[in-house]
């Protein structure tokens, strides 16, 4: 069981996030402190408005907190971003239409100045990893939604980041595709072995994937509880039907009571 006692990869201390608006100040996050260990797979779970995406964006240095401190891979969030410590996957694949799948995947490497032959080799490796062999020459629009999201994952992994940040990556997909991609994500992760922060509003998805689930509640967004997921790995499809799994769902659902 991986716990926060390992080397901390991401440390948030007393994070506050306020959006000033005309009438009232909106409090997106209040007093959020959490540690994520190196190599851990955690989910940020909560209903809309709980600030889970905001939290992820703070880690990614896409936004800056009003108060509190963030350490990512031992650096400030900005330094970590500049050192390309994380890869990010958004809710939409955000693929560039004018680039073939392969060129989309290796965009980060291109920006880093990696030579073309090496990019080509890496693209083949990543296409293999995400199960898209033979699709490198296609354009994004020629792929289904689920395949596009796999391309986005491959792109995020292309620079071999220590951390993978995922913002509701499968929420736009149908349930069947989503469950299949959950399994594939775990198989990819078992090979890559980096730290994953996964934002979702699905209780079962968070349980199936994670070592720990951070449960957030809204108005103001705050951390309400942390659930350890003691299911063994590798996780299998059958585990979704186990009494243990249902017990965890009930436990987490219970932590939302009174919200």
């Amino acid at each position, binding site marked *: 069981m991986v716990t926060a006692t390992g080397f901390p990869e991401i440390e948030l201390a007393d994070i506050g996030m306020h959006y000033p608006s005309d009438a009232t100040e909106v409090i997106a996050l209040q007093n959020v402190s959490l540690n994520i260990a190196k190599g851990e797979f955690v989910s940020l779970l909560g209903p809309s408005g709980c600030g889970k995406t905001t939290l992820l964006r703070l880690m990614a240095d896409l936004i800056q907190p009003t108060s509190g401190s963030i350490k990512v891979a031992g650096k400030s969030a900005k330094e970590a971003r500049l050192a390309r410590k994380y890869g*990010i996957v958004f809710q939409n694949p955000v693929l*560039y239409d004018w680039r073939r799948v392969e060129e989309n995947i290796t965009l980060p490497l291109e920006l880093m100045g990696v030579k073309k032959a090496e990019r080509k080799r890496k693209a083949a490796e990543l296409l293999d990893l995400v199960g898209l062999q033979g699709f490198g020459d296609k354009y994004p*629009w020629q792929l289904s*939604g689920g395949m*596009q999201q796999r391309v986005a994952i491959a792109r995020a992994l292309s620079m071999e980041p220590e951390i993978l940040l995922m913002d509701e990556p499968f929420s736009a997909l149908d349930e069947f595709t989503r469950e299949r991609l959950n399994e594939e994500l775990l198989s990819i992760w078992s090979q890559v072995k980096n730290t994953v922060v996964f934002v979702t509003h699905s209780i079962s998805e968070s349980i199936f994937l994670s070592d720990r689930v951070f449960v957030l509640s809204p108005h103001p967004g705050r951390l309400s509880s942390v659930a350890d997921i003691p299911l063994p790995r590798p996780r299998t499809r059958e585990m979704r039907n186990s009494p243990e799994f249902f017990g965890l769902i009930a436990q987490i659902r219970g932590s939302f009571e009174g919200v």
Partner: protein
Amino acid sequence: MPTMVWGLGLLVLWEAASWYLLQVRQVPLAQSKLPYIHEVLRAFANYGGTLAKEGAVTFGNAGLGFLLGSAAGALLAILMSLSKWVEHLAFPYAVASQMIPILGLAPILYGIVHDEQVARILIAGYITFFPVSINTLRGLRSVEPSALELMYSYAAKSWSIYFKLKLPASLPGLFSGLKIAAPLAVTGAILVELMGARHGVGVIMLRNLYYGPSHTYMFWSTVIVGALLGVLSYLLMSAIERLVAPWQPEFRAKGGDRS
């Protein structure tokens, strides 16, 4: 096939109307108002060489002006997208410039440069400039926030964001500007020729208009040449667009869209 039938039907209708005006109603100057198509085509065939030669002169000048205007328009769009300050400074003038009637501007410009060649090129460029600039700017601004955040997450340099994201994303805008501007540039060049020049479609157009009803078929031929040049310029831009930005939705094969 339906287009063929439609076109033929239109020609038959035209011939019939022309005959009706001339023979039945006996309208004065009937042939100047609606000439027989076959007579126009005969004039077109008899003077094909002249029409082609003068058409080429017009097209060449329009093309040169179009290139200059497009380059200037695209450049201004880039500058405006880079700096709000440039936009606030240049945009009102760009809009105001379009309020000046070309019909008034052409003789003024001709009076200044005293060169039909240069005047034609300048007017064609002047007309081209605005639609290209506006549409390119819109294209540059069309980049999705998440596509930019992706670049930000890779710590991409501003120039790579420009070359790898903003410029490709602006191509559809640029081309819609070019497709609007190309036929306008031809019209602009012809307009200057009407003011006084030695060569070009506009010159024979004006000459045949002066000669009166006896030259009405030739006059109509020149009108057709002008229209054909406009269509040609548009088709040329469409063909180039297909080569340069083939990834746009309208060029996608049916049935291959995302599922």
